[in-house]
């Protein structure tokens, strides 16, 4: 439940709103990008159990004890797909979160929220996906494709340490994704086609405690792996519990030393992996993400990118420290139909955080140019204070000025709210 009081320069309006908790809570925080951030992660790849042999002098044989994984389409995040240009025509203008780099810019540029996204993991899968999308010269409808080019081929020499400590240039390559999407325009017997690119980098600035936490998580996961490996060595070499035959005594001694780590189960391995992931994501640092997208219209029966509709570019940068965070965002949008318009949205957010409170200020300024723009350039500025009364109860207060609309100047506003929600919520970051 949210109680809100609004007032303008000449008008005092009090209202009581009953809102679903999800509507009254701020947008969840973007996780601190690890060196391997925001990528399609829930998509089993389409090839598996295919050992590959490099040239060698000996004779070799491989046997995979498990069957190949099957490719499966995965539901896209609606929030991710609709982010980006959703506020372009809104009379309320854009908020800072609207300017965030979308995960798949191709979907954003044509305004689709695909229920299934194809994520081919090999060059062959890409070829099949493109062939299916091309559909013999016409354009398939509701295509949603996302590819991470670097990961289309194996990287047998890329170790964990090289990957998590990759240079900025390599991060750009590792994190690059290419997306494409289509959607029908029935009234014109046409199809809108979007293409997008996105990548990001992270300048890590971890403190000693965070580095120690990461090293501890790595050491724990490695110990669990070692128990499994050494236990397998024991079985492999048929070491009895009291065997004096080398290397059995060393193996048994090592297993005894590792026993204090506890029983190794699939769950324990997963927990250790999650702990490592969290330790990496918790690290402070500066993140930068960049994306671009283009949208064209084509006839349904003849693939031809004949009409340019829109182009957009995003640049987001931010630093997260222990108790503060700063984010800057730029989005450029060029619209070619029905009128030629250019929007440049500039956004910034500065915040300070504690265990029970968050205080932040954010502003967005839009510069509009082109043929007879429907609105003038204007901005929105708001300051917010949140205080955690209990795990489910939050007090929030905001004060700011809205952007101008087509019919009025932006009004000042103030909001005082008590938000109740089921489940624990963290301070907004």
């Amino acid at each position, binding site marked *: 439940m949210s109680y809100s009081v609004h007032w303008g320069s000449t008008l005092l309006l009090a209202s009581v709103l009953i809102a679903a908790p999800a509507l009254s809570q701020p947008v969840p925080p973007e996780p601190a990008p690890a060196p391997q951030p925001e990528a399609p992660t*829930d998509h089993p790849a389409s090839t598996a159990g295919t050992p590959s042999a490099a040239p060698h002098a000996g004779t070799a044989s491989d046997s995979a*004890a498990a069957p190949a*994984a099957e490719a499966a389409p995965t539901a896209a995040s609606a929030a991710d797909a609709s982010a980006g240009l959703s506020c372009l025509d809104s009379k309320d203008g854009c908020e800072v979160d609207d300017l965030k780099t979308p995960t798949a810019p191709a979907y954003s540029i044509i305004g689709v929220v695909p229920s299934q996204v194809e994520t081919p993991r090999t060059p062959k899968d890409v070829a099949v996906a493109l062939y299916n999308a091309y559909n013999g010269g016409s354009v398939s409808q509701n295509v949603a494709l996302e590819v991470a080019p670097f990961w289309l081929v194996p990287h047998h020499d890329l170790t964990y340490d090289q990957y998590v400590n990759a240079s900025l240039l390599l991060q750009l390559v590792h994190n690059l994704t290419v997306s494409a999407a289509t959607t029908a325009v029935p009234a014109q017997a046409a199809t809108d086609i979007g293409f997008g690119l996105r990548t990001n980098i992270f300048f890590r600035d971890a403190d000693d405690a965070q580095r120690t936490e990461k090293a501890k998580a790595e050491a724990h996961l490695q110990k669990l792996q070692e128990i*499994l490996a050494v236990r397998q*060595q024991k079985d492999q070499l048929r070491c009895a519990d009291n065997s004096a035959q080398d290397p059995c005594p060393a193996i048994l001694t090592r297993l005894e030393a590792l026993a204090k780590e506890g029983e190794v189960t699939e769950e324990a391995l997963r927990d250790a992996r999650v702990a*490592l992931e969290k330790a990496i994501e918790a690290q402070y640092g500066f993140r930068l993400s960049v994306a671009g997208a283009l949208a064209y219209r084509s006839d349904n029966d003849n693939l031809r990118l004949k009409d340019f509709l829109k182009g957009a570019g995003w640049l987001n940068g931010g630093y997260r420290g222990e108790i503060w965070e700063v984010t800057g965002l730029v989005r450029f949008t060029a619209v070619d139909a029905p009128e030629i318009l250019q929007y440049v949205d500039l956004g910034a957010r500065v915040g300070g955080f504690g265990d029970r409170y968050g205080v932040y200020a954010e502003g967005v300024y839009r510069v509009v140019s082109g043929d007879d723009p429907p609105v003038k350039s204007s901005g929105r500025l708001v300051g917010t204070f949140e205080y955690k009364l209990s795990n489910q109860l939050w007090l929030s207060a905001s004060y700011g000025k809205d952007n101008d609309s087509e019919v009025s100047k932006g009004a000042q506003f103030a909001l005082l709210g008590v938000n109740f929600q089921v489940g624990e919520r963290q301070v907004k970051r």
Partner: protein
Amino acid sequence: MKTIKHTSKYKVGSGQGQVHLRVVIGEGQFGSSSVVVGASLFPQVRTFDENIGLPAELNGKLISAISVVTDTNKQTNLTSVTYELSGGPQPFGHSSEVTVDRDGDSVMFIAEIQLEA
């Protein structure tokens, strides 16, 4: 847990230089390897990159390399281990790979390489 097994032979020859073994866990995934050469157990490491002895000492011995790899890389579910041997008449290289079914799964790679003169 999936298990991938590889077996092969490697000719160490009769040279005077050290035979070198590398066991590399690829795809940016987190893993570590336990290596036994003959009667010696080497400490568990993420990348094994060691001289394992002279050809004359290694003739007839077995290399047993067991690697456990956990899918920590959000960009791919592919896991791989590459084995490289040098110091014999010809270098040796082999990569085993498998894709985990679910994010975060672990895989055990087992390699047995018989060393011959």
